[in-house]
């Protein structure tokens, strides 16, 4: 293969990719504008955004996403820090556990929740609305674990944890102060990346919410899809824009990090 054919090949591949990825996005957007007969309008968006069910479920999922991020950070940051500082030989085990949610399908995990925490079990978490919410946040934290742990652990790798710890402790900092005021700010970029990814996963999540029977955004979208024609397309465009926003923010914080990091270390 000479350079010319290989270049033509590459452009061809790219062209096919642009068509394949572009058409569904274009198609969805076009479809979402068709609600009023004979003319393009944003009517579907107006209807969706004005729907009280949309506002309620979206707000609920927003809350779930924030709670998941907080729980994930509280769980992952101290653990990753502690494992790096004190228990390096534990790392393979901890890492393996954090990767398990990629191996075990989410539907199996939530099936286990329903069996283990039903109303007649030793820990009836599905008994009340708020405890089901708690169970769901724990479930989402589990799903986010592979991404969050990896992000934080990579962030910690570039720090000299032992020195930071010794310095802080010799100045009389408590373990809490140490993690809150020294470790957390130093891995903030990693945490933010993980947080935005978690947000993107949780906001439209369907299986957990549907099977635990909570009024989240994912099941709402599914219900709209089963009953309406144009609103689902508008919802898909909104969801895509949200995912795009999350990924854009990840890029943004990472780029800022690069700008900040270079002068700091030189």
């Amino acid at each position, binding site marked *: 293969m000479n350079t010319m054919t*290989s*270049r033509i090949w*590459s*452009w061809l*591949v*790219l062209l096919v*990719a642009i068509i394949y990825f572009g*058409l*569904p996005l*274009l*198609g*969805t957007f076009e*479809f*979402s504008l068709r609600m009023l007969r004979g003319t393009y309008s944003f009517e579907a968006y107006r209807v969706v955004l004005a729907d009280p069910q949309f506002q309620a479920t979206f707000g609920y999922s927003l809350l779930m996403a924030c709670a998941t991020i907080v729980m994930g950070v509280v*769980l*992952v940051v101290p*653990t990753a820090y502690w*494992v790096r500082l004190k*228990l390096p030989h*534990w790392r393979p085990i901890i890492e393996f*556990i954090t990767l*398990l949610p990629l*191996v*075990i*399908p*989410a*539907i*199996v*995990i939530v*099936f*286990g929740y329903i*069996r283990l925490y039903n109303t007649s079990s030793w820990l009836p978490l599905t008994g009340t609305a708020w405890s089901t919410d708690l169970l769901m946040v724990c479930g989402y*934290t*589990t799903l986010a*674990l592979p991404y969050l742990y990896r992000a934080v652990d990579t962030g910690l790798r570039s720090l000299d944890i*032992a020195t930071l710890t*010794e310095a802080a*402790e010799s100045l*009389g*900092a408590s*373990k809490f102060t140490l993690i809150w005021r020294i470790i957390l700010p130093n891995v903030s970029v990693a945490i933010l990346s993980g947080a935005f990814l978690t947000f993107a996963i949780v906001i*439209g*999540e*369907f*299986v957990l919410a*549907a*099977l635990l029977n909570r009024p989240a955004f*994912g099941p709402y*979208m*599914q219900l709209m*899809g089963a009953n309406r024609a144009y609103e*689902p*397309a508008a*919802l*898909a465009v909104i*969801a*895509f824009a949200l*995912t795009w926003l*999350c*990924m854009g923010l990840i890029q943004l914080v990472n780029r800022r990090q690069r700008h900040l990091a270079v002068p700091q270390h030189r």
Partner: protein
Amino acid sequence: MPSPSNTIQHKGTHHAPARSWAWLGVVPFLLFALLFLLLPTANIIVGAFRNAGGEWTLANIYQLFQPSILASYTISLKISIASALLGGVIGFAIAVAVVQGDLPRWIRAPLMTFSGVASNFAGVPLAFAFLATLGRLGLVTLLLRDWFGINLYATGFNILSFWGLTLTYLFFQIPLMILIITPALDGLKREWREAAAMLGATTTQYWLKVVFPILLPSLLGTFALLFANAFGAVATAYALTGSSLSIVPIVLFAQIRGDVLQDPHLGYALAFGMVMITLVANSIYLWMRARSERWLK
């Protein structure tokens, strides 16, 4: 947790203290993993080998071999393999085109960002996007009819089918492949290409005899990951097809919801089968990744 003064004492010696309480620090994490990951999964796996009376049995596993369930596993496997294979090949081609420099450099950054977005754009909205594009009233369906006089649905195509679902899954499979394989391609050293050229190898020989063997573990491993990714997906398929295409996750979903409650223990067995299949796929991935790291440092 040891008090701060303890920590500093141990730091000087670099020896593990005779009786360390350091492990207490990971107890919250382990407890969480136990409660919300390990125990629930173990519960399902154990349940697959028990009957309603709590006695050990293989009857639930035997039930998996009835024709309707076997058909579900077959269609699930077919879709997962097809979307992983196609996604892998196409994603690889795109990644090669960008990394090898046949395309302008500036394409790389937006491509990676887009891959990050598209690989996470799964689930219900993705199904809507494909319905709006290739459904009976979708943009492409209408354009083909109006511009080219092709009635897509008369050709036997249906978005609610094996190919429809595979085509939809590719929307997150291809970007995932690009995200994973690009670093591996970056790891190919320029010297290898130069050495091959110096010894008289053609480009084809360089790809077949140098690149391919080095990347093979990464490629196979990523294939396994893509496979597991498609195999466990519920939301996209459910929003796209409802229950009309009975792939395993949808059958399980219906079982749990109680839509078709013939036998609760069949649900355990279905879930157990899913875990076994993704476990095999991911073990291949991890094993292959460990092998490929030898070359790509």
